[in-house]
């Protein structure tokens, strides 16, 4: 019963969130200076030409009518037609999703495999006054260097000097897996710098918080070894914030790593949206943002379920018992 209540509550709030996002994005694309007609026809188009184009795409109707029409088709699973490529937006997004998914998976895998052990190790080895400063500086740097700076630097270095990895020559995974991976390594690495830094830091903080818990002292008092305690008592107790972070990073990347995909010229969801914004391709921007919001909502439900499994006190059915 409680579970049913939880799911229905989540479904309702998710629907409300999506609806809010749809209104915001629909309004936002139309508030951008320079409408679709101006962008497509250029600065020298006549008023008649613009009006003709607007009529063709229904842009002459009142905005709330346009919105109602769009919402109706989206609810039916149809995201409309790209005004530039004249292809269905849904199909184009779907075709680009594997690229973004692969990129996200690589970056998140590196965060888990490097960030989590780094965080655990630095927390367990932490001594008062020793080593912490260097780690904080490094992770602070990793968190704060913007992706476009790092991305551009990597693109420059790797296209200027032959270092064995190609930049900008994306190959489909199905065509040549090895070359595909070679083109994905660099963008994934650029994304990882931020993800690893923030994962390591969050893991470290979480583990340090668990280390001072009485049950850890009790385990030390029973004569357990540090790694036994890490494995059995610390990892799971420190997992909730790390899982939340990794889920958020995954959702963020799946919605399209806009800058990195664009800089590395990868045909993913992110570069698709960036192009669409430039060309005022309303249907594509709307669908892309809605997709990103949907991914976030689903990921948040997944995070809540996972955290509840990891820590029974936080479970979705745990209720409000202290």
């Amino acid at each position, binding site marked *: 019963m409680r579970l049913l209540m939880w799911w229905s509550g989540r479904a309702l709030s998710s629907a409300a969130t999506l609806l809010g996002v749809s209104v915001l994005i629909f309004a936002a694309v139309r508030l951008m200076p320079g409408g679709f007609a101006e962008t497509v026809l250029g600065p020298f188009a006549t008023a008649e030409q613009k009006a003709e184009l607007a009529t063709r795409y229904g842009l002459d109707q009142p905005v709330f009518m346009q919105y109602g029409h769009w919402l109706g088709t989206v609810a039916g699973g149809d995201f409309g037609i790209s005004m530039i490529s004249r292809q269905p937006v849904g199909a184009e997004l779907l075709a680009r999703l594997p690229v973004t998914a692969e990129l996200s998976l690589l970056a998140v895998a590196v965060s888990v495999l490097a960030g989590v052990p780094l965080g655990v190790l630095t927390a367990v080895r932490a001594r008062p006054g020793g080593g912490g400063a260097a780690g904080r500086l490094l992770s602070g740097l990793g968190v704060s260097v913007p992706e476009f700076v790092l991305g551009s630097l990597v693109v420059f270095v790797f296209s200027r000097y032959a270092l064995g990895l190609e930049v900008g020559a994306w190959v489909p995974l199905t065509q040549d897996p090895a070359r595909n991976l070679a083109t994905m390594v660099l963008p994934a690495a650029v994304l990882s710098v931020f993800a690893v830094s923030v994962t390591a830091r969050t893991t470290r903080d979480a583990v340090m918080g668990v280390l001072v818990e009485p*049950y850890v*002292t009790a385990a030390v*008092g029973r004569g357990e070894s540090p790694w036994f305690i890490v494995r059995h008592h610390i990892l799971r107790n420190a997992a909730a914030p790390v899982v939340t972070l990794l889920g958020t990073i995954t959702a963020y990347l799946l919605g399209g790593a806009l800058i990195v995909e664009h800089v590395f010229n990868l045909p993913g969801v992110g570069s698709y949206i960036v192009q669409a914004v430039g060309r005022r391709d309303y249907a594509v921007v709307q669908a892309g943002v809605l997709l990103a919001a949907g991914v976030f909502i689903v990921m948040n439900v997944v995070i809540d379920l996972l955290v509840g499994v990891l*820590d029974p*006190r936080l479970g979705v059915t745990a209720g409000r018992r*202290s």
Partner: protein
Amino acid sequence: MSLLSVRNLVIDYAGTRALDGADLEVAHGEKVGLVGESGSGKSTLGSAVGRLLPRPARRGGGEVLVAGEPVFDLPPAGVRRLRRRHLGFVFQDPIGSLDPTMRVGAQLRLVLGRGADVNVHLERVRLDDPRVARAYPHQLSGGMAQRVAVAMAMATSPELLVADEPTAALDSQVREEVLNVVFALAADAGTSLLWLSHDLPAVARRCDRVAVMYGGRVVEHGPAREVLGKPAHPYTAALAGSAPAAAAHGARLEPVPGRPPVLTGPSPGCAFAPRCALAADRCHHERPDPVRVRDQEVLCHRAGEVTA
């Protein structure tokens, strides 16, 4: 040879002196109560027995011997072996000392080994309900959780159990049940007990010996009834006088006047001198050496002049 022997132990926490040359002996099978006000160094002494002090703690001198082994001079693996073979700990916060993400049964199995019968160990602490093993710590009451913690600490039949105010967080009825379990299990296993407590009447009832701490030192040590019945140290006398149960019905409780000291370095004289009615000039400048009064070891220049 004593099972536990603490000699002139000095422990500092970043500028604060928690132990200022503490001495304590616990023999095999003995039940020793360690009493004193909050901040007197009880918990530090209890933790030092297993080298479980928090990170900023520094040993400024002295030693702790458990079964003849110097706890502070052993390599990490040696300390772990010593804890596994000889020591058990029970702490104040019963639910906090259990892992919140593991079922009680799983935690016990982690201590006992895979094939062990968890229910036998739960029944020993009078938790007969089979649902306890399947419960998470937050689903237990404080008394149940503390009995689980006792079962875990006693699972390996340690030679010495250090119980740091195990009943401070429990209500009075549950308190007695938990103490009964602790003392019964200790008696069965021949385990010595170092019980840190504020509860003087309970200590007098249950313990063979009592050690009274003040200002980071054990100021009086001897048979429980003697120490609490005929104190030889002015502080013990004041403490015994301030215990509710010691007062005749209707009589005014006499609180210990003044505040306990916060030491930043070695106390120049007797740490209790500023609060002591009997303090003489030398009490402020000269650290007292242990003297024997009746069956008690006392750190006081004027021991023996005390009349309770």
